[in-house]
């Protein structure tokens, strides 16, 4: 996501006043979270700033106010319209933390939303979406209207969705139970890809879990360094002069280091743990697309079956020269058109998915590289500053040691 932003801002370095001689760009930023409303109704609103030279956008810059459910709306629309494309993931809907709205939670969410919308804006197909334009340009009332219109239509998706999901993952158990063999693609290459995705999710989830724990450990170590520092300072008050000072300085250093640790904990969270979590979500989004592909395939196959049966019926009717023939022929033609359409849909998904997998791998390689780099950098810098802080105490401790051993010096 840093990569995307960076490439975005690189092209923004050119003056937006020379539209014709310049590469098309569309960059968005999600900023300025503000708490709105009270109590149960409270929510966070974000400023969404769009900078672009796309002709459809009618202007170089636009600022709108959006809330989380607006982003959800956009994502759902994109998911419906662009089957086969890996729609970027959104941060989780949270029911509990929502009420607490800690600064950290708000920052994590803002970052994730920013990444989401930029990914959409830099995807060559998604960026053309009308829904994206609505999202980026319309005023809040219009947005609210759009949102409330959609809630009914997509309601049944989750259940349907979960069913397909289960089928995709548990085909073996179905066969064992003697159920009808689910209609599945038998493409070995695709099988490999699916396996890869499922395993990747497990690995990423585990890595993210440990990354989150590491953030916590940094915080805990910071806290105990602070407590230790205070205790050491107090202990120093029992001693006089040089030794007492040594204690108090050590205590002060310890407290200072505690602050550094808290800072690094935050850095680790935002630049390492969150990107990992983001990719876990991204993989889950891919799984959703996999499910869509399975649905499309099944539709296509079922239609093909239906068409075959219809053909048989039709021939029967032709032989008996029934009056139902005309109707049947019309239905047949309709079915054939539907069949073509469902085949087209399926094949589009397959083609898109192949492109998307390659794009995903490329992007993941970059993003993961950056995240690991941030991790290593953070750790090295932290260690360096801690080591220097401690090291600066040593000359004083040496002096104190000398003084203690030669009190008459």
């Amino acid at each position, binding site marked *: 996501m840093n990569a995307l932003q960076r490439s975005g801002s690189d092209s923004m370095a050119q003056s937006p006043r020379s539209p014709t001689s310049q590469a098309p760009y569309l960059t968005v930023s999600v900023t300025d979270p503000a708490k709105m409303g009270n109590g149960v109704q409270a929510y966070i609103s974000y400023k969404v700033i769009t900078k672009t030279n796309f002709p459809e956008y009618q202007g170089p810059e636009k600022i709108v106010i959006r809330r989380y459910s607006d982003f959800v709306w956009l994502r759902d629309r994109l998911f419906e319209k662009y089957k086969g494309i890996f729609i970027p993931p959104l941060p989780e809907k949270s029911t509990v933390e929502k009420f607490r709205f800690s600064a950290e939670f708000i920052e994590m969410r803002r970052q994730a939303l920013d990444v989401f919308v930029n990914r959409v804006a830099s995807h060559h197909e998604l960026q053309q979406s009308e829904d994206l334009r609505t999202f980026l340009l319309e005023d809040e009332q219009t947005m609210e209207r759009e949102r409330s219109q959609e809630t009914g239509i997509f309601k049944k998706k989750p259940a349907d969705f979960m069913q397909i999901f289960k089928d995709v993952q548990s085909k073996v158990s179905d066969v064992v139970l003697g159920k009808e063999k689910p209609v599945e693609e038998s493409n070995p290459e695709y099988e490999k890809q699916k396996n*890869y995705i499922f*395993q990747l999710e497990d*690995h990423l989830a*585990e*890595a993210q*879990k*440990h*990354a989150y*724990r*590491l953030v*916590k*450990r940094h915080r*805990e*170590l910071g*806290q*105990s*360094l602070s*407590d*230790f520092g*205070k*205790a*050491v300072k*107090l*202990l120093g*008050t*029992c*001693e006089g002069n040089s*030794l007492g000072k*040594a*204690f108090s300085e*050590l205590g002060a250093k310890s407290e200072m280091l505690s602050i550094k640790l808290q800072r690094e904990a935050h850095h680790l969270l935002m630049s390492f743990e969150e990107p990992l979590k983001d990719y876990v979500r991204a993989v889950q989004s891919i799984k959703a697309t996999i499910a869509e592909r399975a649905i499309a395939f099944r539709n296509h196959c079922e239609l093909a079956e239906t068409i075959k049966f219809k053909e048989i019926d039709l021939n029967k009717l032709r032989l008996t020269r029934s009056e139902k023939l005309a109707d049947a022929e019309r239905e047949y033609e309709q079915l054939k058109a539907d069949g073509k359409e469902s085949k087209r849909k399926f094949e589009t998904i397959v083609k898109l998915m192949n492109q998307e997998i390659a794009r995903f*791998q*490329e992007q993941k*390689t*970059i993003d993961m*590289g*950056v995240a*690991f*780099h941030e991790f*290593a950098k953070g*750790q*090295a810098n*932290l*260690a*360096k500053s*801690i*080591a*220097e802080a401690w*090291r600066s*105490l*040593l*000359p004083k*401790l*040496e*002096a*104190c*040691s000398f003084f*203690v*051993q030669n*009190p008459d010096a």
Partner: protein
Amino acid sequence: MMGSENNHIQESSREQMEIPILNEDDGSNDDVSTSKSYSNYCSAMTTLSSSSEHPLLTPPSIATNPASSDPLLFPSHDPFPESPSYADVIISPLEDSPTVSSDGDGGSDDVHRKLRVSPRSQLEGSEYLRITVSDPKKEVESSNSFVPGGNSYVTYLITTNTNIHEYRGSDFRVRRRFRDVIMLADRLSEGYKGYFVPIRPDKSVMESQVMQKQEFVEQRRVALEKYLRRLVMHPVIKKSNELKEFLTVEGRMPSSARTDVASNLLDGMMALPKQLLGESRSVIESQDAVEPAKGRRDLLSLFKELKQSVVHDWGRSRPPVEEEDKELLEKKEKLHYLEQQLTNASKQAESLVKAQEDMGDTMGELGLAFIKLTKFENDHAILNTQRVRAADMKNVATAAVKASRLYRALNAQTVKHLDTLHEYMGLILSVHSAFSDRSSALSTIQTLTSELSSLHSRAAKHETTSSKNFGGDNSRIHKLEELKESIRVTEDAKRRAIRDYEQIKDNNRSEMKRLDSERQADFVNMLKGFVTNQVLFLFKAYC
């Protein structure tokens, strides 16, 4: 957990406190800048090794392989080629820092020599007395034991190696059981009143089953060793006959029944804070002149008293002894405050160690998870850049695992250094006991003084009445003679008591001085050790 480490801990804390080599596998620790390992964070970041699948084996190079370099990461790697020079930076100032001890070291050029924390004992001359407690063996007592609790016990082998003249020999090996240690402790506290005699290890109330548990025996072995080593560090006690006998005389030591019963009862009060235990023990001893029966009665009433009194009670539960020594009162206050701060600091030190441990563990788990992830990605890679990135990630992951191992080593050292806090907490208990020796002695004087004055007044009364009856009563004359005899005896006793008290006061004073100076030295060493340790660890793990 602390068991076997303590052997070396105690040993080295009083001798060369070398900052240990944390990284066992590296051959030399001096030359980090040309380290062939990529397993630290700095070099992991600078590697862009594309061709090699085994970056750990390739010679170190700030790889600038443009063909497969990641344009994103490449520019940001510029700051990090300086990591070798950071290693230089961190070493050189340490070499310039003034070294205090001109200790006879083997002349190694190791940087660590400069960091050596010089312990006090080095400056006290070349006397040494090294003790090891080992080889616990179960033995069976042949005769019927008076003490309930079974007739089997454990003996420990105590090996002594010394050059102290009074010991007339250099190596001794004896077998002792815990009961012998208790007796030694009792004899020491009897004979060295006013001194800060180290507190002996707990004798937990036990059944024979508990005694046989391996863990318990090991714990006790460690505790005994610590205790004997502490005794040896006391400049006066290390030359005492009692200790010498204990360490050198072969064969079984005589046991005293009275000691058994009394100390069993005493140890039954294990639930009570140790300082109260210290006080009560010396109360018993000061009534040595009295028969055991009375002693036990007093003991039981004291038991009740102690149960009701507050933890950090500096003798207020007993009838207030008139202590006019302001200096003493001041010192007591100071020590009380020190004790509180030590307790607090030790608690925070424990949680610091725990936090470091957790950090190390999680770091290790993270590293392993990433190693698995990178292996997985590598296996399924379809682009070459993926393989490159996987290799980089593997370096970071390996660095994390290494850091995790080093955290464990760091903690072991941190525990060792901060243990000084615990040592001093224990020492303060000895001070309590020494101060109560003094209070007892003073109270003895006061008792004797009041006895004397009552004897004198009785004698005076006798004289006036007998002078009235001229010619006198023989019995009355005898009584007077008896009284005069008692007075003489009591005056003698009082003289002796005063002498004892003054001696104890002197002991207190000299011990306080010793405590003050030793404490300062020990604390400085503790701080130095702790800080140096942190620096070295961070250096090794991350750069």
